[in-house]
């Protein structure tokens, strides 16, 4: 799994390439914590190149979403989910708690 981050004026974009499972999720948790620790809480997850996500990855997203929304200071939104991954999000009841956008540009534009 590879993580690349881009900092924009209003938000940060975090792009994941590859698998988000029990082996790789701690690395994402570290990266998201690093962004939050800079006082930045508006984050777009670019999932266009995400190949797989397990409950370990979902847990990191939920924990970060809770942290970003605290004190109404931000939000973590998702963009570009491949169809099979979107179906897992739906099964896990995540489509009702995350804002999900078709593409990254639209997601960035919401901040």
């Amino acid at each position, binding site marked *: 799994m590879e993580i690349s981050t881009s900092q924009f004026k209003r938000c940060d974009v975090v792009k994941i390439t590859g698998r988000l*499972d*029990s082996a790789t999720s701690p690395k994402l948790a570290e990266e998201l914590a690093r962004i939050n620790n800079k006082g930045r809480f508006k984050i777009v997850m670019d999932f266009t190149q995400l190949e*797989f996500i397990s409950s370990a990855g979902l847990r990191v997203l939920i*924990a970060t979403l809770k942290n970003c929304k605290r004190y109404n200071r931000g939000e973590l939104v998702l963009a570009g989910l491949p169809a099979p991954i979107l179906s897992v999000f739906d099964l896990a009841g995540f489509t009702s*708690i995350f804002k999900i956008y078709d593409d990254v540009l639209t997601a960035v534009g919401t901040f």
Partner: protein
Amino acid sequence: MKTRVFPGRYESLAEIAEFVTTEAQNAGLNHQESFELETAVDEAVSNIIEHAYGGEGIGEIKCHCLIEDEGIRVILEDYGQPFDPSCIPTPDIKAQLKDRKNHGLGFFLMCQLMDEIKFEFYHDHNRLTMFKRKKES
């Protein structure tokens, strides 16, 4: 039936996924069905490492793939502590964000994604059998 043995480490997950999805395609599952099987197997293996072995690098995981007329059967065997995740409470997937629990989702996904799940506990090993049916062509 094809069998492979993997070290009980999270790094094995990608290799196990490759083995299982290749066999799923050989069994005639479509991309979505294969992805669902991969998800269930990933959750099962993660549970074995975390709960049966209590950590990484403790023991091995044996993975058997059996292609059947109606789909594929995946059997996972470990030599750790018996762990039956069906005793974990079902997560409330309609709960609001603040009430969301961090655990229990993996087993819930396994049950939702597979057509059959069976746990067996023997004196020297544990066996989890999962079956995924393919759509009728």
